[in-house]
């Protein structure tokens, strides 16, 4: 009869329930702070929360909004595919060969450290004004972080897992599907989360500089006419979208990390 030697350690797989309540509390506190700032600075400088919400509703219901949103959306989608897939392919390729990864990492980090805004004029010159410039903006923001994360994911595969797989007589294809993919997935998803946010940022910035349509364009217009209400309404929209997307990806990330040993 086998002896039970020890009990499993506790792992907190769920956050304590009060976090949701805390978040609500925080949200209310921030809204209140916002209102106070409005009172201090005046409604022409900062529009109040209810006024901003009304403005946002008005913007969304305006007939041209759908056109702008679609414009931003399709550029973002294209840029996202390029940065996620491109970054993934580059990262996986570089991570799987030791010398390639060693050569490439400082180069990638150096490229990443170049403030991308300084490249904007070059992008505009290369792609002209229009959709391709926007997609380019978005892609250059997201592709390098995704590649770096993917590269690290491959490099961090524990060699004992590969040896165990060989000891269990798996074919190379089986090793790829049943060991490499699950082992690298959490880190790749973390890279995707970051890539998502940065590609969105890049696409918006591209619209601000290179387009006559899209949400970024609406922002630039509002900035030039000093239309604070629109600026804040659109910022609210972006924050909501980004937070929602980030939350979804975070859940996915946690779902994968929750089973990991750290």
């Amino acid at each position, binding site marked *: 009869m086998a002896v039970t030697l020890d009990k499993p350690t506790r792992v907190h797989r769920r956050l304590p329930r009060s976090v949701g309540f805390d978040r609500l509390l925080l949200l209310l506190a921030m809204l209140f702070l916002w209102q106070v700032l409005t009172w201090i600075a005046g409604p022409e400088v900062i529009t109040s929360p209810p006024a901003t919400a009304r403005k946002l509703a008005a913007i969304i219901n305006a007939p041209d909004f759908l056109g702008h949103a679609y414009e931003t959306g399709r550029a973002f989608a294209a840029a996202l595919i390029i940065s996620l897939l491109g970054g993934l392919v580059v990262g996986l390729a570089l991570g799987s060969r030791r010398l390639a990864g060693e050569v490439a990492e400082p180069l990638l980090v150096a490229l990443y450290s170049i403030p991308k*805004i300084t490249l904007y004029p070059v992008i505009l010159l*290369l792609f002209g004004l229009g959709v391709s410039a926007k997609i380019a903006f978005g892609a250059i923001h997201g592709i390098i972080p995704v590649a770096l994360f993917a590269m690290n994911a491959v490099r961090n595969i524990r060699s004992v897992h590969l040896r165990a797989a060989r000891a269990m007589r798996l074919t190379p294809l089986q090793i790829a599907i049943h060991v490499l993919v699950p082992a690298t997935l959490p880190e790749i998803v973390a890279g995707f989360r970051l890539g998502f946010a940065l590609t969105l*940022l890049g696409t918006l910035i591209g619209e601000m500089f290179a387009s006559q349509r899209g949400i970024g364009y609406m922002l630039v217009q509002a900035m030039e006419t000093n239309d604070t209400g629109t600026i804040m309404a659109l910022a609210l929209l972006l924050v909501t979208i980004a937070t929602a997307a980030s939350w979804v990806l975070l859940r996915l990330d946690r779902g994968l990390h929750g089973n990991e040993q750290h």
Partner: protein
Amino acid sequence: MSRAGFIRLLIVAVAIVGLEVACHAGLIDPITIIPPSAMAAGAWKLLISGRYTEDILLTLGSVALAAALAVAGGFGLGYGLFRLPRLRRALDPLLASYYAVPTFIFYPLFIVLFGLNRLPLVAIGFVFAVVAMAINTLTGFERVPPVLRRTARALRLSEPAALVQITMPACAPYLFTGVKLVIAYSFIGVIAGEFVLSGSGIGHEIAFAYNNFDNPTMYGLMLLLIGFVSGLNMLLFAWERRFYRRRGLT
């Protein structure tokens, strides 16, 4: 030089030479991109002409101020979040989405608040950089091994003494990472602001040259800017790596 370093140098050299050749061979439209040698010549001319010295100093000054404020503010915010874990957990998703919004859209807001001077640019740089510092400060404090805190108590150190003599040195690598990011982000914030709606500074001059099809000036300024910022970032990154390696951290 290691084999990897040599290959890297080779790649960069080939890229630059390739671009140079392509430009001279007429494969690339000079309205779009000028040869690297012309960029370098333009940059040199700009430096010695002294015409842009004031702009350069303005930009650097704003960046420095924004960075200093962001380091201080970010440190305070990070430490505050460390001591208030409930607040920290509640704030998590917001922190994650912070960098999805181009914060320089609030530039007009800052102009109204601070006036038509350099302060709105400093504010943008600050807002962009402060969260990165806060996150890294938080991580640093969290990663202090509990055994060090117990050591402080075993040595009967007072709370402030423990903070200064044990906790801070333990966090130092992460704080350094925070400072590195602050510098990078302050540059991005200030220059982005200058691009969009400013009358002074390097960003403005680059945008001005772009609008006037003055490629040599534009590329010259860009080369100066990219060279300076990238050089600074890479230097900081190399120090950072040495820092972490000496501590046995990855």
